[in-house]
């Protein structure tokens, strides 16, 4: 509780937390909040490209769907994708990092070399190739992003494990006959939790952005999903007349990523006071 | 006697922190006569560094001089602006020698660059051009006994030993031909032999160049070797001052006496001082030493008057009457 109060003193981080909570709420209640929840999949071509009005606060898109509803409904996909990607990447990267950091030897070498290989090109390039080869769909995009993001977790956990391992108590635990798995998951992992949480939070924002790029390139979410990046891609040829079509999904991406970044920053300062801003 | 080069009277400095203000300095009196070396002695945390910062006008932003005078060659330092201090006082009229030669030099610049920067933007007679300044520096490096001075200017700090770096810093302090040197425990970080050489060097330079020096230390041995006069500080208050020999010989203030007693060279049997330096945030009233003083009296909770006896001054109720 005290920690929370201390955290809340950091205004930008609190704003971030607020945005993230709001996003989660919107994602959870999407269909109840959206004025036209069916517009996720239904088109009404007769009312296409209407400017914002009381009826359609963000206007309508090229198929006559309410942009406001689609932005709201899109939150679920954006967050869902990011959550899936980060979870899969964590599920892969954390254990691998733990093993590589704890075990040493050829296994560690092998894991870290593979990590190096994946990190040898910018993430998006590999993700784009992968997403395309797997046939474009939201699932492929998630898989591609996760498959290229786990090394970041692996690196983080590896470094932490190395650090903690050299601390005396691991030797002591081994001395009293604790199993390596037990040591890794019960003793080392909790010590590495804070950097993992920070990495995951920042990864959420990053993934929302990257997934939007994939959607924009037509290699991610598939129509008629109310994906934000896809909406911007679809909106391009109606610009600048139908400015609302591109603007609002763009703002949604911006706000969501901003929220996670602010929160991640705040968390990092919180767990790693070396980079404390106030000092 | 001519006007002292530096006079500090009744100086009080407080620092605002998260939990209220703290009077780091409370009642500091200090006089440095021209041509003399005055040692300021005190334990760590007694406010020595703050005193130096106050003199150089580089107190941190959350610190403020609440009262007292700071007068350099008759000029009121408190009246000068930041820009004036930076241009006319720091580095130019008052040279500064820092405590730790290993940390005080900028690791990524050449020695020459750093020393020239001190002279930058200052008018020094006969040193208009860059090459004049360079020649001047080479002369200084020779004076502080740096081998191959011209080459030294082109090297980086990490390529020098600690003693050499301290010599470089001394050269830096002398670069603008200051009248006063302020040295902040310049030998603490060095080994004993180097320490001796540096002290000798300082003493000689001060004599040759007719300088005055404020020398801050916690080490009575160093003071005895170097200083003409001593000023003892405890918890932000000047407790005693006077000629070195007299004080060492016959300390008046109980704190001075105990401090000398702590020094391995001076004391017959080592006695520590019981208790700890009080927090400046919540200092005891009156003489700040009285909670630890073996000879404390009832009136010690009031600020003691300063009694003068010739060159000697002491702030203690024990001596208030005499």
């Amino acid at each position: 509780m005290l920690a929370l109060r201390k955290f809340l003193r950091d205004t930008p981080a609190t704003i971030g937390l607020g945005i993230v909570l709001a996003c989660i709420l919107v994602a959870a209640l999407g269909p109840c909040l959206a004025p036209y929840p069916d517009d996720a999949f239904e088109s009404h071509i007769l009312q296409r490209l209407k400017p914002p009005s009381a009826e359609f606060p963000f206007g309508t898109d090229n198929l006559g769907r309410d942009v406001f509803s689609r932005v709201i409904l899109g939150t679920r996909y954006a967050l869902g994708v990011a959550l899936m990607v980060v979870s899969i990447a964590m599920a892969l990267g954390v254990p691998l990092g733990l093993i590589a950091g704890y075990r040493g030897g050829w296994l560690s070498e092998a894991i870290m070399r593979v990590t190096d290989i994946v990190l040898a090109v910018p993430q998006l390039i590999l993700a784009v190739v992968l997403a395309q080869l797997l046939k474009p769909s939201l699932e492929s995009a998630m898989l591609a992003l996760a498959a290229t993001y786990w090394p970041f977790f692996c690196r983080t956990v590896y470094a932490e494990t190395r650090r903690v391992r050299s601390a005396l108590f691991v030797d002591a635990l081994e001395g009293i006959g604790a199993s390596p798995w037990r040591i890794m998951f019960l003793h080392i992992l909790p010590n590495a939790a804070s950097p993992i949480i920070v990495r995951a939070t920042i990864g959420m924002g990053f993934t929302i952005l990257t997934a939007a790029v994939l959607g924009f390139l037509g290699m991610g979410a598939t129509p008629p999903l109310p994906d934000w990046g896809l909406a911007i891609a679809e909106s391009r040829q109606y610009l600048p007349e139908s400015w609302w079509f591109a603007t609002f999904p763009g703002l949604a991406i911006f706000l969501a990523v901003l929220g996670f970044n602010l929160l991640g920053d705040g968390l990092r300062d919180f767990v790693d006071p070396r980079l404390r801003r106030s000092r | 006697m001519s006007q002292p080069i530096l006079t500090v009277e009744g100086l009080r400095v407080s620092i605002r922190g998260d939990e209220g203000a703290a009077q780091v300095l409370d009642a500091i009196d200090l006089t440095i006569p021209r041509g003399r070396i005055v040692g300021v002695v005190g334990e760590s945390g007694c406010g020595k560094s703050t005193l130096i910062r106050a003199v150089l006008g580089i107190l941190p932003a959350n610190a403020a001089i609440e009262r007292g005078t700071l007068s350099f060659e008759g000029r009121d330092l408190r009246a000068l602006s930041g820009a004036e201090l930076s241009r006319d006082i720091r580095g130019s009229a008052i040279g500064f020698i820092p405590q730790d030669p290993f940390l005080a030099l900028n690791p990524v610049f050449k020695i020459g660059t750093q020393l020239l920067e001190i002279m930058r933007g200052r008018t020094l007679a006969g040193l208009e051009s860059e090459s004049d300044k360079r020649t001047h520096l080479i002369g200084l490096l020779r004076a502080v006994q740096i081998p191959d001075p011209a080459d030294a200017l082109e090297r980086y700090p990490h390529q020098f030993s600690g003693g050499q770096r301290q010599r470089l810093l001394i050269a830096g302090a002398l670069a603008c031909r200051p009248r006063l040197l302020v040295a902040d425990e310049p030998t603490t970080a060095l080994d004993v032999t180097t320490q001796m050489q540096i002290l000798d060097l300082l003493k000689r330079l001060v004599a040759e160049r007719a300088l005055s020096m404020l020398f801050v230390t916690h080490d009575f041995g160093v003071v005895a070797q170097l200083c003409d006069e001593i000023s003892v500080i405890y918890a932000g208050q000047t407790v005693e001052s006077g000629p070195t020999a007299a004080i060492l010989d016959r300390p008046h203030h109980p704190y001075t006496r105990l401090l000398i007693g702590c020094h391995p060279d001076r004391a017959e049997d080592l006695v520590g001082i019981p208790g700890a330096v009080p927090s400046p945030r919540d200092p005891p009233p009156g003489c700040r030493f009285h909670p630890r003083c073996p000879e404390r009296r009832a009136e010690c909770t009031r600020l003691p008057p300063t009694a003068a006896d010739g060159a000697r001054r002491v702030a203690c109720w024990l001596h208030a009457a005499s």
Partner: protein
Amino acid sequence: MRTLLLAVAASAALTAGFDAAPARAQSKATTLVWGDQLPAGLDPHVVFDVPMQYVLLNVYDGLYRYIGNPPELKPWLAESSSVGADGLTWEFKLRPGVKFHDGSDLVAGDVVYSFRRVLGMKRGPAGAFLPVLKADKITAPDSRTVRFQLESAYAPFLAAVPLVAIVNPRAIAPNVKGDDWGSAWLASNAAGSGAYSIDAASYRPREALDLKRNAGHFFGWSDNPKPIDLVQSRPVQETSTRVLALMKGDIDSTDSYLPTDQVERVQKSGSTAVAKDESMRVFIIRMNNKKAPFDNVEFRRCVSQAFNYDGFINVILKGYAERNPGPMPKNLWGAPADAKGYRFDLKAAKDACDKAKAAGAPIGREIEIHTQSELDQTLQAAQLLQSDLKKIGVNAKIVPNQWPNLTSSTAKAETTPDMWIHWISTYFVDPENWIGQTYDSQFHGTWKASSWYSNAKVDAMLREARVSTDQAKRKKLYEDASRIVIDEAADIWVYNTVQLRGLTNRVAGYKFSPVGGGGDLRYLTLKN
């Protein structure tokens, strides 16, 4: 730090001062800037697609050429042609005195080389000839005569002849590497005789190509007193950017597929206009007739009536398309004039669906509609269809895909998508290009026949038409075959394209043909 700030300020000032305007002014008056796509490589025998027509028409010549709209097949390098009564032997008589850009004479041997090169590389336009023509059956009895001896009668042969650019073997020979027929070299160079020659030094793939007028072109320039001497091709990759560039005056022409939503805006701007020409390019939603429930004719009729043709054409495309009820472009001979096709009628669709259901068709299955993700219209059509299908209880899923993926998936019926959307453009102007290659079951496994439609009666009709030399008979056969295919709802035919090209007002003389989409530069002039 101050120097840094100064540098930033200075560079900002510099940048603002150097806008494109002054640089443009000097050469603008006499130069046309063409913003349409360039083909990926310049070798006309390797790539055969719509952008290649620009190179084909301007840099190269063929034996025959399609001119005008509707296109007429006219002798070009050939003066005349003749075909034996068996339909197997074709002879072409060349014009005298035609010269390549390097000044050498274009003779019958060069035509033989060009056709053999196409057959040898087996790429681009080769598909039209490989089944009926062997390399050693192309001969030059004399320097002005070329003879083709076909393996089997093939009525559309003449219609396909313009596909082949006649290249200069003497220019290519020094650049041949191994068995590549010089194609690596020809991908960035040219060896033609056309109305324009390329400035190879200006060529930057995807970026720039300068074309210079060939004053000595065999056709002469009497039909255009003020031709354009220099044409700078500056392809703009993205549709939206291309429109903006046209309106800004950076380019004089877009491609000929201007999004219909942009037409009004381009027309309104005052300095630009839109050329609108009905083409021969059928928008088609394929159904995999071998996969249930599409193997049920009632289900296909159901889906055919669930597409909102009017909404798509009049609202989404703003009327810039012509409803085309059958597989043939309705402005081509062989399309039955009386065919009505299907109308959007959800009730009728539902009835048809119920019939299909009664017959055991698994209409509850989620069907996949594959689109081409670069082409917005395919997405829009799919979304529209999906939305209406949902109302009659049919669930569809949209799968964006790419051309190479799609065409390789059509090799087998099992891998061919339930539905996919594309256009059939004018590769050559003959019904064979549309109904012939799409609904004759012998073409199963190619993307054109990807509905896997098979009807023995239709097969027989199309095969008869393919070998017949009697035009009237062919027309009748194609019309009858069309009626059957339409009745059986083999696919959903939506519209025949109205091609839209944005042009700046200073461009005059624009002449459209479905082949090449109006990219033939020899007719153009610049007003000042």
